[in-house]
């Protein structure tokens, strides 16, 4: 494996600077965000590299648990940030965190104990990268599904209430919106599976090949990861959409859009 020097990384970062420069020149207005995101990823990845180095030497369950918690809470925050109309109160945060916890952690655990058979199961070299990949993908799925759920519910207030008035339960009234938002959460991973190998070599496989691993071995790992991700994303989106849609109604089956944050510049229609 060829080691990368800071100089090599500097060269690569020039490309990002170039992109930022172009954005400024073309008045795209994203140069600030590009630079901040690049700086964030530099800092975060360097830090996590250091942390993992320490973690790998110890194999201590409390430390690994702490790391997993940090990852989960960061993912929860990210999901919340991506909502146009987020839930008010703790729900804006906890729906995402709970559904990601439910899906990512259980699928990771399953992979470690049953599929790969790591001993001890919490060996950080396996646990952290697996959990990271699952969390990252589940996060996207959950964020998209929840965002679609709340936005569609907001826009379809008329039809939803019409179904309630026709003697429907809250579940019948939200059925269509729910199905639509779940589908949107699953589309990215389905697409990724469909084009894997043909168009793109997925990131994990690329990494393993670049690090000198045998390609077939890398492909097998990638395949497993993708199945895990599909299951995790599906489970996470379903949990999020179920809890989220339940939260949109109260015990008398009323549509409670007042439980969502009003986005800037618009007020709820006073009926």
């Amino acid at each position, binding site marked *: 494996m060829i080691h990368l020097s800071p100089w090599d990384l500097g060269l690569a970062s020039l490309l990002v600077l170039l992109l930022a420069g172009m954005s400024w020149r073309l008045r795209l207005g994203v140069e600030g965000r590009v630079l901040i995101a690049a700086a964030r990823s530099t800092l975060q990845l360097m830090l996590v590299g250091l942390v993992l180095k320490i973690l790998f030497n110890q194999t201590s369950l409390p430390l690994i648990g702490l790391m997993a918690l940090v990852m989960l809470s960061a993912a929860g925050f990210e999901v919340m940030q991506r909502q146009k109309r987020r839930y008010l109160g703790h729900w804006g945060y906890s729906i995402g965190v709970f559904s990601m916890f439910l899906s990512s952690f259980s699928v990771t655990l399953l992979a470690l104990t049953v599929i790969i058979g790591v001993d001890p199961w919490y060996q950080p070299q396996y646990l952290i990268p697996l959990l990271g990949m699952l969390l990252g993908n589940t996060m996207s799925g959950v964020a998209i599904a929840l965002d679609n759920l709340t936005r569609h519910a907001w826009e379809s207030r*008329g039809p939803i*209430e019409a179904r*309630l008035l*026709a*003697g429907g339960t809250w579940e019948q009234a939200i059925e269509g919106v729910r199905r639509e938002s779940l589908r949107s959460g699953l589309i990215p991973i389905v697409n990724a599976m469909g084009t894997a190998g043909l168009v793109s070599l997925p990131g994990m496989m690329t990494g393993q090949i670049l690090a000198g691993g045998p390609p077939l071995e890398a492909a097998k790992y990638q395949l497993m990861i993708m199945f895990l991700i599909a299951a995790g994303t599906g489970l996470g989106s379903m949990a999020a959409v179920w809890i989220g849609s339940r939260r949109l109604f109260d015990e*008398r089956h*009323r549509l409670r859009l007042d439980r969502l944050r009003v986005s800037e510049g618009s007020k709820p229609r006073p009926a």
Partner: protein
Amino acid sequence: MAGLRLEGIRHSLLEPVDLSLAPGGLVFLSGPSGSGKSLLLRAIADLDPNQGEVWLGAETRSAMAPALWRRRVGLLPAESAWWAETVGEHLPDPETGVAPDRSDVAHYLNHLGLGTEVLDWSIARLSTGERQRLALIRLLAQRPEALLLDEVTANLDPTNRRRVEGLIDDYRRNEEAPVLWVSHDPDQRARLGGRSFVIRGGRLEPEP
């Protein structure tokens, strides 16, 4: 054959309302826009959070499942909303055991000057007036025991206004259903009779 009785129904714009409608009773409600007429109807149908109790005959709203309550105390909003592709899909489903009798629907359609072929029409091609009339048929097909009507003739030409009024009046008499009707039209109130109330400054007052 049940009356409708409001007991201290309250929402954000309105002081507690007590109102009693006999079986087959007709009450008109008017008031400036924004005074809370629609909100009152929504509160009775339990569509918005509200305080107070509503009685349908001897049964209370709080003791009834919300879906059943809304099926029995039918609210027709000023603006109809549709959730499926065609008109027919919106009519009560025989599987749920609610008003499977399509001959009723045919009768209603005929009464409002529409043919049964509209059931296959897509919602998108309906005019505002057609939507309004079909929304009434959709509501009556679920055989509500009380009617809450919110400016249901606002978008109709005089002919169709008379037809809709006639259909509602027939339903009220035949089913002895109490009707609470928000209407701005004094002529309409004069045509149909019944008691009139007006909302002034957040209070419900009888109108002579």
